[in-house]
Protein backbone atom coordinates (compact mmCIF):
# COMPACT_ATOMS: atom_id res chain seq x y z
CA UNK A 1 0.00 0.00 0.00
CA UNK A 2 1.12 3.49 -0.79
CA UNK A 3 2.04 5.91 1.98
CA UNK A 4 0.14 9.05 2.83
CA UNK A 5 3.03 11.14 1.55
CA UNK A 6 3.20 9.36 -1.80
CA UNK A 7 -0.55 9.82 -2.35
CA UNK A 8 -0.22 13.56 -1.71
CA UNK A 9 2.84 13.70 -3.91
CA UNK A 10 0.92 12.05 -6.74
CA UNK A 11 -1.99 14.48 -6.32
CA UNK A 12 0.34 17.49 -6.28
CA UNK A 13 2.09 16.20 -9.39
CA UNK A 14 -1.22 15.75 -11.18
CA UNK A 15 -2.20 19.31 -10.23
CA UNK A 16 1.11 20.60 -11.62
CA UNK A 17 0.53 18.63 -14.82
CA UNK A 18 -2.89 20.18 -15.23
CA UNK A 19 -1.42 23.65 -14.70
CA UNK A 20 1.25 22.94 -17.29
CA UNK A 21 -1.19 21.55 -19.86
CA UNK A 22 -2.72 25.00 -20.39
CA UNK A 23 0.20 27.37 -19.75
CA UNK A 24 -1.45 30.51 -21.12
CA UNK A 25 -4.58 29.96 -19.04
CA UNK A 26 -2.55 29.22 -15.94
CA UNK A 27 -0.34 32.26 -16.44
CA UNK A 28 -3.32 34.59 -16.85
CA UNK A 29 -4.94 33.14 -13.74
CA UNK A 30 -1.75 33.65 -11.76
CA UNK A 31 -1.49 37.21 -13.04
CA UNK A 32 -5.09 37.99 -12.05
CA UNK A 33 -4.54 36.62 -8.55
CA UNK A 34 -1.11 38.25 -8.29
CA UNK A 35 -2.38 41.71 -9.18
CA UNK A 36 -5.30 41.38 -6.78
CA UNK A 37 -2.88 40.44 -3.99
CA UNK A 38 -0.28 43.06 -4.95
CA UNK A 39 -2.57 45.89 -3.80
CA UNK A 40 -2.82 44.94 -0.11
CA UNK A 41 0.73 43.58 -0.15
CA UNK A 42 2.01 46.87 -1.60
CA UNK A 43 0.02 48.78 1.01
CA UNK A 44 1.63 46.68 3.73
CA UNK A 45 5.06 47.35 2.26
CA UNK A 46 4.52 51.14 2.30
CA UNK A 47 3.02 50.93 5.76
CA UNK A 48 5.90 49.07 7.33
CA UNK A 49 8.35 51.50 5.70
CA UNK A 50 6.36 54.43 7.07
CA UNK A 51 6.36 52.81 10.50
CA UNK A 52 10.09 52.40 10.29
CA UNK A 53 10.41 56.04 9.25
CA UNK A 54 8.26 57.22 12.16
CA UNK A 55 10.37 55.12 14.47
CA UNK A 56 13.66 56.66 13.37
CA UNK A 57 12.44 60.27 13.25
CA UNK A 58 12.49 62.41 16.40
CA UNK A 59 10.42 60.24 18.61
CA UNK A 60 10.93 62.68 21.46
CA UNK A 61 8.33 65.40 21.07
CA UNK A 62 9.74 68.88 20.89
CA UNK A 63 8.53 72.48 20.85
CA UNK A 64 9.84 74.83 18.19
CA UNK A 65 9.88 78.49 19.13
CA UNK A 66 10.31 80.93 16.26
CA UNK A 67 11.27 84.55 16.80
CA UNK A 68 9.75 87.32 14.74
CA UNK A 69 11.69 87.97 11.54
CA UNK A 70 12.52 91.49 12.62
CA UNK A 71 13.64 90.49 16.11
CA UNK A 72 17.20 91.38 16.95
CA UNK A 73 19.73 88.92 18.24
CA UNK A 74 19.49 90.54 21.67
CA UNK A 75 15.83 89.62 21.95
CA UNK A 76 16.67 86.07 21.02
CA UNK A 77 19.41 85.86 23.66
CA UNK A 78 16.94 87.09 26.23
CA UNK A 79 14.41 84.43 25.26
CA UNK A 80 17.12 81.81 25.35
CA UNK A 81 18.07 82.59 28.94
CA UNK A 82 14.39 82.78 29.89
CA UNK A 83 13.78 79.40 28.37
CA UNK A 84 16.79 77.92 30.10
CA UNK A 85 15.48 79.01 33.49
CA UNK A 86 11.85 78.10 32.89
CA UNK A 87 10.50 75.21 34.96
CA UNK A 88 9.62 72.16 32.91
CA UNK A 89 12.18 72.87 30.20
CA UNK A 90 14.80 70.21 29.94
CA UNK A 91 16.95 71.37 27.10
CA UNK A 92 17.15 74.32 24.73
CA UNK A 93 18.88 74.33 21.37
CA UNK A 94 19.38 77.63 19.57
CA UNK A 95 19.14 77.67 15.79
CA UNK A 96 20.59 80.93 14.47
CA UNK A 97 18.90 82.18 11.29
CA UNK A 98 22.21 82.21 9.39
CA UNK A 99 22.76 78.59 10.24
CA UNK A 100 19.30 77.64 9.06
CA UNK A 101 19.87 79.51 5.81
CA UNK A 102 23.16 77.72 5.24
CA UNK A 103 21.61 74.36 5.95
CA UNK A 104 18.72 74.94 3.58
CA UNK A 105 21.09 76.16 0.87
CA UNK A 106 22.90 72.85 1.10
CA UNK A 107 19.81 71.20 -0.29
CA UNK A 108 20.10 71.42 -4.08
CA UNK A 109 16.33 71.53 -4.53
CA UNK A 110 15.94 74.57 -2.34
CA UNK A 111 19.09 76.53 -3.19
CA UNK A 112 17.71 78.14 -6.34
CA UNK A 113 14.56 79.24 -4.56
CA UNK A 114 16.44 80.77 -1.66
CA UNK A 115 18.94 82.56 -3.82
CA UNK A 116 16.35 84.71 -5.54
CA UNK A 117 15.02 85.97 -2.22
CA UNK A 118 16.25 89.46 -1.24
CA UNK A 119 16.75 88.63 2.44
CA UNK A 120 17.10 85.63 4.76
CA UNK A 121 13.55 84.36 5.17
CA UNK A 122 14.33 82.26 8.24
CA UNK A 123 13.95 83.61 11.81
CA UNK A 124 16.03 82.70 14.81
CA UNK A 125 14.54 79.67 16.47
CA UNK A 126 14.77 77.37 19.48
CA UNK A 127 14.11 73.71 19.83
CA UNK A 128 12.85 73.00 23.32
CA UNK A 129 12.71 69.59 24.96
CA UNK A 130 10.41 69.38 27.96
CA UNK A 131 10.87 67.32 31.10
CA UNK A 132 7.26 66.21 30.84
CA UNK A 133 6.51 65.29 27.23
CA UNK A 134 2.84 64.39 27.60
CA UNK A 135 0.74 66.35 25.09
CA UNK A 136 -1.15 68.38 27.76
CA UNK A 137 2.05 69.51 29.49
CA UNK A 138 3.65 70.42 26.16
CA UNK A 139 0.54 72.34 25.15
CA UNK A 140 0.73 74.34 28.40
CA UNK A 141 4.35 75.29 27.71
CA UNK A 142 3.53 76.33 24.19
CA UNK A 143 0.73 78.61 25.39
CA UNK A 144 3.13 80.26 27.82
CA UNK A 145 5.90 80.74 25.24
CA UNK A 146 3.50 82.30 22.74
CA UNK A 147 2.96 85.25 25.11
CA UNK A 148 6.62 86.13 25.35
CA UNK A 149 7.88 89.23 23.52
CA UNK A 150 9.10 88.91 19.94
CA UNK A 151 8.00 85.28 19.77
CA UNK A 152 6.13 84.99 16.54
CA UNK A 153 5.18 81.32 16.42
CA UNK A 154 5.29 78.26 18.63
CA UNK A 155 4.87 74.85 17.13
CA UNK A 156 4.35 71.55 18.88
CA UNK A 157 6.31 68.96 16.93
CA UNK A 158 4.47 66.21 18.75
CA UNK A 159 1.42 67.22 16.75
CA UNK A 160 3.20 66.08 13.62
CA UNK A 161 4.08 62.74 15.18
CA UNK A 162 0.55 62.27 16.40
CA UNK A 163 -0.85 63.11 13.01
CA UNK A 164 1.49 60.57 11.39
CA UNK A 165 0.43 58.02 13.97
CA UNK A 166 -3.23 58.59 13.15
CA UNK A 167 -2.42 58.34 9.44
CA UNK A 168 -0.61 55.06 9.95
CA UNK A 169 -3.56 53.67 11.89
CA UNK A 170 -5.79 54.65 9.01
CA UNK A 171 -3.31 53.04 6.62
CA UNK A 172 -3.34 49.82 8.59
CA UNK A 173 -7.12 49.69 8.54
CA UNK A 174 -7.08 50.38 4.81
CA UNK A 175 -4.59 47.56 4.21
CA UNK A 176 -6.69 45.15 6.28
CA UNK A 177 -9.86 46.16 4.47
CA UNK A 178 -8.17 45.86 1.09
CA UNK A 179 -6.74 42.50 2.12
CA UNK A 180 -10.15 41.20 3.20
CA UNK A 181 -11.86 42.49 0.07
CA UNK A 182 -9.30 41.22 -2.40
CA UNK A 183 -8.92 38.04 -0.37
CA UNK A 184 -12.62 37.39 -0.92
CA UNK A 185 -11.99 38.17 -4.59
CA UNK A 186 -9.20 35.59 -4.65
CA UNK A 187 -11.52 32.96 -3.14
CA UNK A 188 -14.03 33.77 -5.88
CA UNK A 189 -11.39 33.50 -8.61
CA UNK A 190 -10.13 30.20 -7.22
CA UNK A 191 -13.71 28.95 -6.87
CA UNK A 192 -14.55 29.54 -10.51
CA UNK A 193 -11.22 28.31 -11.87
CA UNK A 194 -11.59 25.07 -9.91
CA UNK A 195 -15.19 24.83 -11.03
CA UNK A 196 -13.98 24.94 -14.62
CA UNK A 197 -11.39 22.31 -13.80
CA UNK A 198 -14.00 20.09 -12.19
CA UNK A 199 -16.26 20.40 -15.22
CA UNK A 200 -13.36 19.64 -17.54
CA UNK A 201 -12.59 16.49 -15.56
CA UNK A 202 -16.20 15.50 -14.92
CA UNK A 203 -15.88 12.13 -16.66
CA UNK A 204 -12.72 11.36 -14.76
CA UNK A 205 -14.44 12.19 -11.46
CA UNK A 206 -17.45 10.03 -12.32
CA UNK A 207 -15.31 7.09 -13.42
CA UNK A 208 -13.09 7.38 -10.35
CA UNK A 209 -16.17 7.27 -8.13
CA UNK A 210 -17.40 4.17 -9.93
CA UNK A 211 -14.01 2.56 -9.38
CA UNK A 212 -14.19 3.18 -5.65
CA UNK A 213 -12.52 6.55 -5.14
CA UNK A 214 -13.27 8.37 -1.90
CA UNK A 215 -14.19 12.06 -1.89
CA UNK A 216 -10.75 12.73 -0.47
CA UNK A 217 -9.02 11.03 -3.39
CA UNK A 218 -11.12 12.97 -5.88
CA UNK A 219 -10.67 16.31 -4.16
CA UNK A 220 -6.95 16.10 -3.54
CA UNK A 221 -5.56 17.10 -6.97
CA UNK A 222 -8.06 19.95 -7.22
CA UNK A 223 -7.16 21.22 -3.76
CA UNK A 224 -3.50 21.15 -4.73
CA UNK A 225 -4.42 23.00 -7.90
CA UNK A 226 -6.10 25.69 -5.79
CA UNK A 227 -3.15 25.90 -3.41
CA UNK A 228 -0.69 26.13 -6.32
CA UNK A 229 -2.78 28.85 -7.96
CA UNK A 230 -2.85 30.85 -4.72
CA UNK A 231 0.82 30.28 -4.06
CA UNK A 232 1.79 31.21 -7.63
CA UNK A 233 -0.39 34.32 -7.40
CA UNK A 234 1.32 35.16 -4.11
CA UNK A 235 4.73 34.87 -5.76
CA UNK A 236 3.57 37.14 -8.60
CA UNK A 237 2.31 39.68 -6.03
CA UNK A 238 5.60 39.45 -4.13
CA UNK A 239 7.57 40.12 -7.31
CA UNK A 240 5.31 43.04 -8.24
CA UNK A 241 5.73 44.63 -4.81
CA UNK A 242 9.50 44.04 -4.90
CA UNK A 243 9.73 45.68 -8.32
CA UNK A 244 7.62 48.62 -7.15
CA UNK A 245 9.85 49.08 -4.08
CA UNK A 246 12.96 49.18 -6.26
CA UNK A 247 11.35 51.58 -8.66
CA UNK A 248 10.04 53.95 -5.97
CA UNK A 249 13.18 53.85 -3.86
CA UNK A 250 15.03 56.77 -5.44
CA UNK A 251 12.12 59.24 -5.80
CA UNK A 252 10.76 58.50 -2.31
CA UNK A 253 14.21 58.82 -0.82
CA UNK A 254 14.54 62.30 -2.33
CA UNK A 255 11.11 63.26 -1.11
CA UNK A 256 11.71 62.39 2.54
CA UNK A 257 15.11 64.05 2.39
CA UNK A 258 13.27 67.34 2.10
CA UNK A 259 12.00 66.65 5.63
CA UNK A 260 15.49 65.88 6.88
CA UNK A 261 14.75 62.18 7.04
CA UNK A 262 16.35 59.22 5.33
CA UNK A 263 14.43 56.31 3.90
CA UNK A 264 15.61 53.36 1.86
CA UNK A 265 12.38 51.76 0.71
CA UNK A 266 12.52 48.06 1.53
CA UNK A 267 10.49 45.30 -0.13
CA UNK A 268 8.39 42.97 2.06
CA UNK A 269 10.37 41.51 4.95
CA UNK A 270 10.50 37.78 5.66
CA UNK A 271 7.50 37.79 8.00
CA UNK A 272 5.26 39.78 5.63
CA UNK A 273 6.37 37.61 2.70
CA UNK A 274 5.48 34.45 4.62
CA UNK A 275 2.11 35.93 5.58
CA UNK A 276 1.44 36.88 1.95
CA UNK A 277 2.27 33.43 0.59
CA UNK A 278 0.41 31.62 3.36
CA UNK A 279 -2.62 33.85 2.94
CA UNK A 280 -2.62 33.32 -0.84
CA UNK A 281 -2.23 29.54 -0.62
CA UNK A 282 -4.92 29.34 2.08
CA UNK A 283 -7.42 31.34 0.07
CA UNK A 284 -6.73 29.29 -3.06
CA UNK A 285 -7.40 26.18 -1.03
CA UNK A 286 -10.59 27.69 0.41
CA UNK A 287 -11.97 28.55 -3.03
CA UNK A 288 -11.20 25.03 -4.25
CA UNK A 289 -12.82 23.44 -1.20
CA UNK A 290 -16.05 25.39 -1.61
CA UNK A 291 -16.11 24.56 -5.31
CA UNK A 292 -15.63 20.83 -4.69
CA UNK A 293 -18.11 20.66 -1.83
CA UNK A 294 -20.68 22.16 -4.12
CA UNK A 295 -19.93 19.70 -6.90
CA UNK A 296 -19.78 16.57 -4.76
CA UNK A 297 -22.91 17.46 -2.81
CA UNK A 298 -24.89 17.53 -6.06
CA UNK A 299 -24.64 13.79 -6.45
Amino acid at each position, binding site marked *: *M*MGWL*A*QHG*AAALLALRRLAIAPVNSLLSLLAIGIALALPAGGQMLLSNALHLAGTSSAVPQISVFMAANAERRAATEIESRLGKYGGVKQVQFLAREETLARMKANPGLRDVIEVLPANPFPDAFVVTATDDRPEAMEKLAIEFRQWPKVEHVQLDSAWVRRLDALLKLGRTAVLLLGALLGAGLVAISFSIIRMQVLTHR*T*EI*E*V*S*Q*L*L*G*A*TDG*FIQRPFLYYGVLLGLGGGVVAWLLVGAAALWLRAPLGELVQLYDLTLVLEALDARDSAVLLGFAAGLGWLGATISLQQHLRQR
Partner: protein
Amino acid sequence: MIRFDRVSKRYPPGLDALSDLSFVVAEREMVVVSGHSGAGKSTLLKLIAAVEKSTGGAVLVGGQNLSGLARSALPFLRRRIGMVFQDQKLLFDRTVFENVLLPLSIAGFHPREAAQRVRAALDKVGLASREKALPVMLSGGEQQRLAIARAVVNRPSLLLADEPTAHLDQETAEDVARIFHEFHHVGVTVLIATYASELFPGARRLQLDHGRLLP
Protein backbone atom coordinates in the same frame (compact mmCIF):
# COMPACT_ATOMS: atom_id res chain seq x y z
CA MET B 1 -22.40 -13.75 -2.93
CA ILE B 2 -25.39 -11.88 -4.31
CA ARG B 3 -28.95 -12.04 -3.07
CA PHE B 4 -31.92 -10.12 -4.50
CA ASP B 5 -34.93 -10.23 -2.24
CA ARG B 6 -38.15 -8.93 -3.89
CA VAL B 7 -36.18 -6.08 -5.43
CA SER B 8 -37.82 -3.39 -7.50
CA LYS B 9 -36.37 -0.31 -9.13
CA ARG B 10 -38.49 2.58 -10.27
CA TYR B 11 -36.80 5.42 -12.15
CA PRO B 12 -38.39 8.82 -11.93
CA PRO B 13 -40.94 9.79 -13.17
CA GLY B 14 -42.43 6.38 -12.49
CA LEU B 15 -41.06 3.76 -14.81
CA ASP B 16 -40.56 0.32 -13.28
CA ALA B 17 -37.27 -1.01 -14.65
CA LEU B 18 -37.29 -4.01 -12.29
CA SER B 19 -40.24 -5.49 -10.37
CA ASP B 20 -40.27 -7.98 -7.52
CA LEU B 21 -37.00 -9.63 -8.44
CA SER B 22 -35.65 -12.46 -6.28
CA PHE B 23 -32.63 -14.64 -7.03
CA VAL B 24 -29.31 -15.77 -5.58
CA VAL B 25 -25.88 -15.98 -7.19
CA ALA B 26 -23.51 -18.28 -5.35
CA GLU B 27 -19.83 -17.69 -4.93
CA ARG B 28 -17.68 -18.78 -7.90
CA GLU B 29 -20.78 -19.03 -10.07
CA MET B 30 -21.01 -17.73 -13.63
CA VAL B 31 -24.36 -16.21 -14.55
CA VAL B 32 -25.61 -14.68 -17.77
CA VAL B 33 -28.43 -12.11 -17.62
CA SER B 34 -30.31 -11.90 -20.89
CA GLY B 35 -33.42 -10.20 -22.18
CA HIS B 36 -34.68 -7.72 -24.72
CA SER B 37 -33.45 -4.15 -24.89
CA GLY B 38 -34.92 -2.25 -21.97
CA ALA B 39 -35.61 -5.43 -20.00
CA GLY B 40 -33.56 -4.11 -17.07
CA LYS B 41 -30.20 -5.89 -17.47
CA SER B 42 -28.04 -2.81 -16.93
CA THR B 43 -30.24 -1.71 -14.04
CA LEU B 44 -29.72 -5.07 -12.36
CA LEU B 45 -25.93 -4.76 -12.58
CA LYS B 46 -26.03 -1.14 -11.40
CA LEU B 47 -27.94 -2.18 -8.29
CA ILE B 48 -25.21 -4.70 -7.43
CA ALA B 49 -22.43 -2.12 -7.81
CA ALA B 50 -24.57 0.41 -5.90
CA VAL B 51 -24.51 2.79 -8.85
CA GLU B 52 -28.29 2.91 -8.46
CA LYS B 53 -30.35 2.28 -5.34
CA SER B 54 -33.27 -0.12 -5.24
CA THR B 55 -36.66 1.41 -4.50
CA GLY B 56 -38.02 -1.77 -2.91
CA GLY B 57 -36.73 -5.01 -1.43
CA ALA B 58 -33.18 -5.78 -0.40
CA VAL B 59 -29.96 -6.20 -2.39
CA LEU B 60 -27.22 -8.07 -0.51
CA VAL B 61 -23.66 -8.30 -1.78
CA GLY B 62 -21.22 -10.37 0.25
CA GLY B 63 -23.76 -10.43 3.06
CA GLN B 64 -23.98 -6.62 3.12
CA ASN B 65 -27.37 -4.97 2.64
CA LEU B 66 -26.76 -2.17 0.20
CA SER B 67 -29.78 -0.07 1.15
CA GLY B 68 -28.28 0.47 4.58
CA LEU B 69 -24.86 1.31 3.18
CA ALA B 70 -23.39 4.67 4.22
CA ARG B 71 -22.10 6.91 1.48
CA SER B 72 -18.66 6.70 3.02
CA ALA B 73 -18.67 2.87 2.77
CA LEU B 74 -19.56 2.92 -0.94
CA PRO B 75 -15.98 3.27 -2.29
CA PHE B 76 -14.86 0.17 -0.40
CA LEU B 77 -17.71 -1.94 -1.77
CA ARG B 78 -16.87 -0.86 -5.30
CA ARG B 79 -13.20 -1.73 -4.90
CA ARG B 80 -14.20 -5.34 -4.31
CA ILE B 81 -16.25 -5.40 -7.51
CA GLY B 82 -14.82 -5.24 -11.03
CA MET B 83 -17.25 -3.74 -13.52
CA VAL B 84 -17.20 -3.49 -17.30
CA PHE B 85 -19.68 -0.77 -18.22
CA GLN B 86 -21.94 -0.88 -21.26
CA ASP B 87 -20.47 2.47 -22.35
CA GLN B 88 -17.00 1.37 -21.12
CA LYS B 89 -16.23 4.71 -19.44
CA LEU B 90 -12.60 4.82 -20.53
CA LEU B 91 -10.60 8.01 -19.98
CA PHE B 92 -9.62 9.20 -23.43
CA ASP B 93 -6.94 11.62 -22.30
CA ARG B 94 -5.01 8.86 -20.53
CA THR B 95 -2.93 6.08 -21.97
CA VAL B 96 -3.95 2.43 -21.90
CA PHE B 97 -1.53 1.92 -19.01
CA GLU B 98 -2.94 4.86 -17.03
CA ASN B 99 -6.52 3.72 -17.56
CA VAL B 100 -5.76 0.34 -16.03
CA LEU B 101 -3.67 1.97 -13.30
CA LEU B 102 -6.54 4.12 -12.04
CA PRO B 103 -8.30 1.54 -9.81
CA LEU B 104 -4.96 0.70 -8.20
CA SER B 105 -4.11 4.36 -7.55
CA ILE B 106 -7.55 4.72 -6.01
CA ALA B 107 -6.97 1.70 -3.79
CA GLY B 108 -3.60 3.13 -2.74
CA PHE B 109 -1.23 0.58 -4.24
CA HIS B 110 2.48 1.24 -4.23
CA PRO B 111 3.49 2.41 -7.73
CA ARG B 112 5.91 -0.45 -8.27
CA GLU B 113 3.44 -3.17 -7.38
CA ALA B 114 0.71 -1.33 -9.28
CA ALA B 115 2.82 -1.27 -12.45
CA GLN B 116 3.39 -5.02 -12.22
CA ARG B 117 -0.32 -5.67 -11.81
CA VAL B 118 -1.22 -3.37 -14.71
CA ARG B 119 1.19 -5.21 -17.01
CA ALA B 120 -0.17 -8.57 -15.88
CA ALA B 121 -3.75 -7.46 -16.56
CA LEU B 122 -2.84 -6.04 -19.98
CA ASP B 123 -1.01 -9.22 -20.79
CA LYS B 124 -4.06 -11.27 -19.89
CA VAL B 125 -6.28 -9.40 -22.39
CA GLY B 126 -3.56 -9.28 -25.06
CA LEU B 127 -2.82 -5.54 -24.89
CA ALA B 128 0.69 -5.76 -23.44
CA SER B 129 2.24 -4.08 -26.47
CA ARG B 130 -0.22 -1.17 -26.47
CA GLU B 131 0.30 0.27 -23.01
CA LYS B 132 1.46 3.67 -24.26
CA ALA B 133 -1.38 4.05 -26.77
CA LEU B 134 -4.38 6.30 -26.17
CA PRO B 135 -7.82 4.62 -26.22
CA VAL B 136 -8.77 6.38 -29.47
CA MET B 137 -5.94 4.53 -31.17
CA LEU B 138 -7.53 1.18 -30.28
CA SER B 139 -10.11 -0.80 -32.23
CA GLY B 140 -13.54 -1.47 -30.72
CA GLY B 141 -12.51 -4.93 -29.59
CA GLU B 142 -9.29 -3.61 -28.08
CA GLN B 143 -11.20 -0.94 -26.19
CA GLN B 144 -13.51 -3.64 -24.88
CA ARG B 145 -10.52 -5.65 -23.69
CA LEU B 146 -9.02 -2.52 -22.11
CA ALA B 147 -12.23 -2.06 -20.13
CA ILE B 148 -11.97 -5.68 -18.98
CA ALA B 149 -8.33 -5.22 -17.94
CA ARG B 150 -9.32 -2.22 -15.83
CA ALA B 151 -12.15 -4.21 -14.23
CA VAL B 152 -9.95 -7.12 -13.20
CA VAL B 153 -6.67 -5.39 -12.32
CA ASN B 154 -7.68 -5.04 -8.68
CA ARG B 155 -8.37 -8.84 -8.56
CA PRO B 156 -11.99 -8.50 -7.51
CA SER B 157 -13.92 -11.48 -6.22
CA LEU B 158 -16.95 -10.34 -8.22
CA LEU B 159 -16.84 -9.37 -11.88
CA LEU B 160 -19.80 -7.62 -13.53
CA ALA B 161 -19.88 -7.05 -17.28
CA ASP B 162 -22.53 -5.18 -19.26
CA GLU B 163 -22.62 -6.23 -22.93
CA PRO B 164 -18.89 -6.93 -23.12
CA THR B 165 -19.19 -8.43 -26.61
CA ALA B 166 -21.44 -5.83 -28.21
CA HIS B 167 -20.28 -4.53 -31.60
CA LEU B 168 -17.61 -7.23 -31.91
CA ASP B 169 -17.24 -9.71 -34.75
CA GLN B 170 -17.72 -13.39 -33.94
CA GLU B 171 -14.03 -14.16 -33.51
CA THR B 172 -13.26 -11.17 -31.26
CA ALA B 173 -16.41 -11.83 -29.24
CA GLU B 174 -15.22 -15.38 -28.64
CA ASP B 175 -11.81 -14.06 -27.52
CA VAL B 176 -13.48 -11.77 -25.02
CA ALA B 177 -15.81 -14.51 -23.79
CA ARG B 178 -12.80 -16.74 -23.24
CA ILE B 179 -11.28 -14.15 -20.90
CA PHE B 180 -14.40 -14.29 -18.70
CA HIS B 181 -14.29 -18.04 -18.65
CA GLU B 182 -10.69 -17.87 -17.47
CA PHE B 183 -11.62 -15.61 -14.57
CA HIS B 184 -14.48 -17.92 -13.72
CA HIS B 185 -12.07 -20.85 -13.66
CA VAL B 186 -9.79 -19.16 -11.13
CA GLY B 187 -12.69 -18.66 -8.74
CA VAL B 188 -14.13 -15.26 -9.59
CA THR B 189 -17.91 -14.86 -9.43
CA VAL B 190 -18.96 -13.58 -12.88
CA LEU B 191 -22.21 -11.89 -13.88
CA ILE B 192 -22.62 -10.93 -17.53
CA ALA B 193 -25.50 -9.04 -19.14
CA THR B 194 -25.65 -9.95 -22.81
CA TYR B 195 -27.80 -10.80 -25.84
CA ALA B 196 -25.16 -13.30 -26.88
CA SER B 197 -25.69 -15.89 -24.16
CA GLU B 198 -24.54 -18.63 -26.55
CA LEU B 199 -20.98 -17.31 -26.06
CA PHE B 200 -21.10 -18.45 -22.46
CA PRO B 201 -21.98 -22.12 -22.48
CA GLY B 202 -22.15 -23.63 -19.06
CA ALA B 203 -23.26 -20.38 -17.44
CA ARG B 204 -26.55 -20.23 -15.58
CA ARG B 205 -29.10 -18.07 -17.34
CA LEU B 206 -31.32 -15.38 -15.82
CA GLN B 207 -33.91 -14.26 -18.34
CA LEU B 208 -35.42 -10.80 -17.84
CA ASP B 209 -38.62 -9.63 -19.47
CA HIS B 210 -39.92 -6.13 -18.79
CA GLY B 211 -38.19 -6.07 -15.45
CA ARG B 212 -39.41 -9.48 -14.32
CA LEU B 213 -37.58 -12.76 -14.10
CA LEU B 214 -38.84 -15.47 -16.47
CA PRO B 215 -38.92 -18.91 -14.87
